[in-house]
C-alpha cells in the first residue's frame, strides 16, 4: 500500500512551496505554450526562449496541485541551458519513468516505455527521480506530465517556425 510519503517527497514539497523560474518572458522572442489538464483544471503556461538551438531561458506561470507545479518547477531547472536535443532526451527519459506504469494500466499503451533510446537512457534525472513515486498513484500521473507535454508542444512549435524559409 503506497503511503503519502511516496508521493509527497520533501524535494517535491520544496519546489511546490518555492517554485523556481516563475514568471513570464516577452513573446517574441520567447515562445509561449499553454497546457491544460482537462480532468482537474490544472493549467500551465510555459515560456521558452531558444537561442542557437539552446533553451536560453525557461519560465512558467499557472496553477495546479503540488505534483503538477513541482514537476514544472523541477523540469524548468533541469532543461534550462540544454540544447533542444538534450531537452528532448530529458523529456523522453522522464516520460518513460512515468509511462511504464501508464502503459501497463492502459493495457499496452503506446509501448514507448520499453524501447527507450540510448540517448535518453543515459540522462540523469537527479531531483526529478523524486517524482517516481507518482506512478503508484495513477490518477496523478497526468499532473506530473502536464508541464512535460507542454514543453514538447513548445519545442515542436519553435522547431516548426525555425524551419520556415528565412524572410
Amino acid at each position, binding site marked *: *500500500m503506497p*503511503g*503519502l510519503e511516496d*508521493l*509527497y517527497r520533501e524535494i517535491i*514539497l520544496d519546489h*511546490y*512551496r518555492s517554485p523556481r523560474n516563475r514568471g513570464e518572458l516577452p513573446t517574441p522572442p520567447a515562445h509561449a505554450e499553454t497546457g491544460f489538464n482537462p*480532468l*482537474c*483544471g*490544472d*493549467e500551465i503556461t510555459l515560456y521558452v526562449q531558444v537561442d542557437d538551438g539552446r533553451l536560453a531561458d525557461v519560465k512558467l506561470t499557472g*496553477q*495546479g*496541485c*503540488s*505534483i503538477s*507545479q513541482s514537476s514544472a518547477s523541477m523540469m524548468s531547472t533541469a532543461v534550462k541551458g540544454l540544447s533542444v536535443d538534450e531537452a528532448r532526451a530529458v523529456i523522453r527519459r522522464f516520460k518513460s519513468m512515468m509511462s511504464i506504469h501508464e502503459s501497463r494500466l492502459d493495457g499496452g499503451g503506446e509501448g514507448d516505455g520499453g524501447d527507450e533510446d540510448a540517448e535518453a537512457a543515459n540522462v540523469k534525472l537527479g531531483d526529478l527521480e523524486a517524482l517516481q513515486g507518482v506512478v503508484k*498513484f495513477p490518477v*496523478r500521473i497526468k*499532473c506530473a506530465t502536464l508541464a512535460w507535454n507542454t514543453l514538447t508542444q513548445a519545442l515542436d512549435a519553435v522547431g516548426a517556425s525555425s524551419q520556415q524559409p528565412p524572410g
Partner: protein
Amino acid sequence: MALDVATIKKDFPILERTVHDKRLVYLDSAASSQKPLSVLRAMDAYYETTNANVHRGVYAIAEEATRLYEKARTDVARFMGAGSAAEVVFTKNVTEAINLVAYSWGRTNLAAGDVVVLTEMEHHANLVPWLALKAERGIEIRYIPVDGQGFLDMTRLDEALDGAKLLGVTSVSNVLGTMNPIPRLAEAAHAAGALILVDGAQHAPHMPLDISALGCDFFGLTGHKMLGPTGIGVLWARADLLEAMPPFLCGGEMIRDVRLDGFSTNDVPWKFEAGTPPIAEAVGLSAAVEYLEALGMDEVREHERSLTAYALDALRGAHPDLVVHGPPAADDRGGVISLQYRDVHPHDLSQVLDQAGVCVRAGHHCAKPLMRRLGVSATARASFSVYNDEADVDVLVSALADADALFSL
C-alpha cells in the same frame, strides 16, 4: 421521523469495506451515489429470472420483462409527481436527456439569433449542448449571473428573458449547493414566452419532487446519483411538447412502421427510446425510487439539511480559515460543500483525505465557467446522501488537519 442512518448504512454493502485500512467514508454522492442491496438484488433477480427483450416476444418472460420495464416508468412518474407515465422518457443519463431536448426540440425551434438563457452555475451537461447549437446555428446564449453568496442574481431576470425561447437552469448546483427558485423562474420564463428546462440531477436524489408544482416544461434526472444504477436517466417533458418533437435517436423500438422509402414514429414516450433500452437498469431505478419513497423525501431532505448544518459548523469551528463556496446557511443549500483549504490544492487535499478513507471529489466538477466566476481552478467537494452521518463528517474534519500538517507553508 428522522432517518435511522445506522440501519440505512447496513443496506449499503460497500460501506462495510475499508480503504487503506480505514473505514470507507463516502462523501462523493453528488458524483455518484452508492446503491442499496434492494437495487442490487432487483437487478440480479431480473437477470436470473426474467431476462428477455422488451416490447417484442409474446412468451411469458418477455411479457414479464416488458411489464417490469413499464412499471419502472410508472414508479418514476409517481416519484416525480408526473401526471402521466407517457411523459417519462428513459435515457442513458441526464446528459442524454438534455441533449435530447437540444437536438429534437432545439433543432426544430431554434434558429440563428434565437435566445437561450442559461446560468453561470450550470454543469457542462446543460452548457455544451447549447454552445454546440450556438456554433452550429448562431443562437444567442445569455447567462443569469451568480452573486457573491452563490445565489442567482434575479435582479435582471426579466431583461435576460426578454425575447428568449428557453431558460435552462439547474435546480440545485452541484458545486455551490444552491437551491434555485424553480417555480419563480418558471413563472418568469413563461411570462416572457419561453419554456424552462430544469437539470434535476442534484434535486431528485435529495428532496421532494413535484413536477406539477415546479411548473417546468422539461426536467432531467440521472439514476446513478439517486441510489440507482448507471446507464439510466430520465427526461420528463410535457406531453404536448413530446408529441410535437421529432425523434432524437432512430432505429428499432421508436417506429410504428418502416418502409424502404420512409418510416412513421411510435407513440410517446417510445418514440424517443430507440434500440433495446436499459432494462435491468430501469428495474434498478425502480427499486431505488421505492427505497427513497420508503424513507420519505421530506425526511431525506431534513436529514441532509441538518447534516450539512452540522458539517458547516464543524468545519468552520475546527478550521477558521477554510472557505466554503456558496450560500452560508444550510437551509439554502443541498448537501454539497465545496471547500478551499488555505493554499492546499484540492487534488492534494483529496489525496490526503483518501488516506483517511474519505472520498471527496477534487476538480472543476464539470462547471468550468463557474470555477472561473469563483476565481479558482478547482475545489474539493464533500457531498452527502442518506447513508452519511455526523461521524462521517467528524472523520472529514479531523483528516483536514493532516493536510494542514503536510502542506502548511
